[in-house]
C-alpha cells in the first residue's frame, strides 16, 4: 500500500493527488483533535450538568414526598435496596429514598413513564410505605395538548388528588367526583391524559409496591448508610 503511494507521488510529482495515506492521516488527526476537544469540554461541563440534574431530581423528589429534605438513589438488587451514587451507573431498577433533615426516612419517590395522549408521559410519584398512600405526583416530561391534557400538571386540583391517595385497593379513575380514598377524579375534557397518569402510577405500583413494602424493614440500615447527594453549592 505504501509502495503504491510512493509510486504515485514520484510519478506525478505534484501535491494535487494526495494518496490514501494522507487522506487517512488527515482524518485521523482531525478525529484525534476533535476527540480531545470533546473529551475536555465533557470533563469541564460534566460536573455542572450532573449537579443540575441532581438538583432537578432532588427538587422533584422533595415535591412528591412532603417533609423530605435529602434524597438517596437506591438500586433494587437481589431483593434488597442498595444505596448508589447515580441512577445512570446501574442497570438495576432504581427508586429514590427521601429523608428528613435529621435523616429520618420519609418515603420513596418512584420514577415511571408510559404512553399519554400525545407522547410518553414521564412522572415521579411519592410513596409512603407506612400509610400505604401515594404522597404526591409530578410530571417531569410530557407533550400533552396545551389547555387540555397539560392540566395533568397545571391543574392544582388534579395534582392535589395524589397527595394522599390510597393504593389498596388499586387506584382507579372516576368521573364526576372522587369519593373513596383510592379514587382519582378525571379532568373534564382530558380523560385520556388523566387515565394515562393513573395507568402509569398503577404500573409503577405493580412494579414497586411489593418490593418497597418488603424492603421497608431495611429502613434502619439505610438510614445509617445514607449519604446526602445534595451538592455543596446548594446547601
Amino acid at each position, binding site marked *: 500500500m505504501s509502495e503504491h503511494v510512493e509510486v504515485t507521488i514520484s510519478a506525478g510529482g505534484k501535491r494535487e493527488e494526495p494518496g490514501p495515506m494522507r487522506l487517512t492521516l488527515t482524518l485521523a488527526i482531525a478525529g484525534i483533535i476533535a476527540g480531545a476537544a470533546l473529551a475536555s469540554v465533557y470533563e469541564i461541563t460534566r460536573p455542572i450538568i450532573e449537579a443540575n440534574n441532581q438538583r432537578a431530581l432532588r427538587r422533584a423528589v422533595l415535591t412528591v414526598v412532603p417533609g423530605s429534605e435529602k434524597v438517596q438513589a437506591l438500586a433494587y438488587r437481589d431483593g434488597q435496596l442498595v444505596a448508589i451514587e447515580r441512577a445512570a451507573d446501574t442497570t438495576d431498577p432504581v427508586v429514590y429514598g427521601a429523608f428528613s433533615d435529621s435523616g429520618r426516612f420519609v418515603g420513596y419517590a418512584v420514577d415511571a413513564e408510559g404512553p399519554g395522549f400525545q407522547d410518553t408521559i414521564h412522572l415521579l410519584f411519592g410513596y409512603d410505605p407506612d400509610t400505604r398512600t401515594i404522597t404526591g405526583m409530578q410530571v417531569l416530561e410530557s407533550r400533552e*395538548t396545551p389547555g387540555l391534557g397539560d392540566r395533568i400538571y397545571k391543574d392544582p386540583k388534579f395534582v392535589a388528588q395524589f397527595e394522599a391517595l390510597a393504593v389498596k385497593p388499586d387506584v382507579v379513575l372516576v368521573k364526576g367526583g372522587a369519593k373513596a380514598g383510592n379514587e382519582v377524579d378525571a379532568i373534564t375534557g382530558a380523560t385520556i391524559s388523566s387515565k394515562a397518569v393513573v395507568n402509569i402510577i398503577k404500573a409503577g405500583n405493580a412494579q414497586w409496591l411489593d418490593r418497597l413494602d418488603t424492603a421497608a424493614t431495611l429502613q434502619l440500615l439505610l438510614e445509617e448508610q445514607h449519604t446526602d447527594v445534595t451538592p455543596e453549592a446548594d446547601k
Partner: protein
Amino acid sequence: MQDMLWIFISAMLINNFVLSYFLGLCPFFGVSNRLSTSLRLGVAVTLVMIVTSICASLLNTFVLPYAPYLQLISFIIVIASTVQFAEMIIKRFSPALFRALGIFLPLITTNCAILGLALFQTNRDYGFLQGLTFAVGAGAGFTLAIVLMASLRQEMRLSNIPSIVQGTAISMILAGLLSLAFMGFAGMFSAL
C-alpha cells in the same frame, strides 16, 4: 407486547417523524414531487433506519457508556457508513433496485430523521427490540407521510394554485393540513 404496539403506532402515526417531530423535512419537501420516487425513498429510509437502530443499540451498550461525548460523532459515522454499505450491497445484489434508489441513497445521510431516530432511541433508553420496533414504525410513518404528500402534490398540478401561494408556501400549508389530520391518531392504543 402492548408496549411494542404503542411504540410502533406512536412512531408511525401519533408522533409521525415528519408531521409531528419535523424530522426529515428536506426530503419530505424535496423528493415528494413524484409518487414512485417518494415511495422508493421511503423504503430506502426505512431500511437505513433499521440498520441505524441496530448499530445505535450496539453503540449504546458497548461504547458510549465509556465515552458519552462521542455519541454524536459515532452516530454520524455509523449513518454515513450504513448508507455507503447499503449502497454497495444493493448495487451488488440488485442492480435494478440500485438504479431505482441510486440517487436517493447519499441524500439519506443528511436526513435528520435518521440521526433523530438514533438520538431519540438513546434518550428514551429503548432496548434492542424496542429500538427496532421504533425504527420500523418511524420508517413506515415517514414512508406514509411522503407518499401521501407526493400523491397530493401530484394532484395539485391539476389545480390553479394562486401564484402567491405557489412553491414552498403551499407545500407548507399542505403539510400543516396533513399534520392536522394526523392529530386524529392522538391517544391511539395509549390508554387501553
